[in-house]
């Protein structure tokens, strides 16, 4: 018989698992739950990061904000000419955007003004909006909305239009021209896209001011030089580069600030209880079993192998089941309950339809944090028992 792989030992291990059924079911359940919970949270955060990373390369190279007394304020549009005259700047686009609070529903919309539907925008917008009638957009008072905005407006009986309350208390009627495609739900759920003049009048901003300016740079190597030039020209302006934003996506979840750490600590604590329970000594029945096996002629090696098979089978199955459940839970069921941690408490909830992205490194780390630790917690006490004499253990 092959001495390396003794099938009878595996059979004995299986019988041993079923013999201590209730205890093993409890351990199996806790292990599965722990792995399921941890991998679900990590899968959600990985998928959110992946979603962000897919779009970051299409951002403008530099976003310029103006800070006054540490607070972001509007930029005078005259600065645009100076910025365009800097060598290397391809285009400079002034943007008007901000929050609009819709009192009746208690939600914030992100209002973005773009340059009155110029040709370059029209072709790209045509592809991302459900409705394909873009000609009407040239009318000044039309808007494109995200699916979340549409839902909120419909709940408040706005089917075709919406009355914005402008800064001076007047009503500004804007017609709904189309909604963004459902593929864009995570990005565009709360976005309202209107023309820039309309945004100016709703926010009550003078026509000579804009929220921020984005620069497109042809040669990426020139970015730092251009930022230095801008800083010399306008010391009150802050430049945020595409790389800054990419870095900020890397750190989107702050482990220090709590929630994941709390979750992890609770799960790790449960796990340590199991390990402690296992390591604090075998029951007298288990010790007796080791003694009987030794008296029957089993070597220490055989006993440890049997214990290894037993614990490895149990924890591996718990791991596989935990991962299977969490993939189904996150990507098929869209993570009910757990998604509430990630989408805030506002009424304007996006469909939590995350793109599938499995980080195999994360799965491997989870495997090595659960299976070998559990195996060790089982083997070490049995090794201590099996080194004793048979009659001493049985006595």
């Amino acid at each position, binding site marked *: 018989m092959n001495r390396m792989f003794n099938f009878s030992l595996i059979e004995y291990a299986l019988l041993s698992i079923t013999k201590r059924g209730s205890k093993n079911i409890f351990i199996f359940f806790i292990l599965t739950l722990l792995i399921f919970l941890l991998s679900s949270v990590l899968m959600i955060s990985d998928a959110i990061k992946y979603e962000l990373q897919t779009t970051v390369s*299409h951002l403008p190279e530099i976003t310029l*904000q103006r800070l006054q007394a540490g607070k972001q304020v509007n930029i005078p549009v005259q600065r645009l000419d100076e910025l365009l005259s800097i060598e290397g700047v391809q285009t400079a686009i002034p943007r008007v*955007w901000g929050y609009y609070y819709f009192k009746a529903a208690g939600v914030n919309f992100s209002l973005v003004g773009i340059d009155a539907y110029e040709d370059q925008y029209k072709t790209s917008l045509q*592809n991302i909006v459900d409705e394909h009638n873009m000609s009407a957009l040239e009318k000044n008072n039309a808007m494109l909305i995200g699916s979340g905005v549409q839902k909120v407006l419909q709940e408040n009986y706005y089917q075709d239009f919406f009355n914005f309350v402008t800064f001076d208390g007047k009503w500004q009627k804007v017609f709904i021209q189309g909604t963004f495609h459902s593929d864009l739900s995570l990005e565009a759920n709360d976005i309202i896209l209107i023309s820039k003049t309309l945004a100016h009048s709703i926010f009550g901003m003078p026509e000579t001011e804009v929220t921020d300016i984005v620069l497109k740079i042809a040669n990426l190597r020139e970015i730092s030089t251009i930022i230095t030039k801008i800083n010399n020209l306008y010391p009150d302006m802050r430049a*945020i580069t595409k790389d800054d934003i990419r*870095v*900020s996506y890397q750190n989107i979840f702050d482990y220090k600030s709590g929630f994941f750490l709390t979750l992890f600590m609770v799960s790790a604590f449960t796990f340590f209880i199991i390990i402690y329970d296992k390591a604090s000594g075998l029951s007298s029945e288990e010790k007796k079993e080791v003694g009987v096996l030794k008296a029957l002629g089993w070597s220490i090696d055989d006993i440890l192998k049997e214990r290894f098979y037993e614990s490895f089978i149990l924890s591996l199955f718990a791991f596989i089941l935990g991962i299977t459940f969490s993939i189904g839970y996150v990507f098929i069921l869209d993570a009910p309950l757990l998604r509430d941690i990630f*989408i805030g*408490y*506002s009424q304007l909830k996006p469909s939590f339809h995350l793109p599938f992205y499995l980080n195999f490194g994360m799965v491997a780390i989870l495997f090595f944090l659960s299976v070998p630790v559990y195996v060790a917690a089982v083997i070490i006490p049995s090794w201590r028992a099996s080194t004793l004499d048979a009659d001493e253990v049985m006595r």
Partner: protein
Amino acid sequence: MTQISRIFIFISFMSLLVLTCEYFYVRTTRTLTQSALEKKALFTSSVGLTDLSLVTEARYARHRSLSDVFSFFAEGPELLEYFPSTFVYHHAPLLNTAPTQIAP
């Protein structure tokens, strides 16, 4: 081969089969398609804001990449964690590159 071994082999085979089937099902149905990627690219390049609309309670949580230091103090200087969402979503780290820092 005893019955328990047969059950064991059957269960291991089934669980691996379920995991594999589920993986490929999710991979084919939930991976971002080329058209979805193109739509996202078009949206991002025309609007220029990519932060996800998962949290809309505060501007520094919704548009966190473009938020400024001052917005954290808008609710009162010591009340940094006013929104539960800010427990989950950390403010952009580029805020803290300035010589005067706010403690994270």
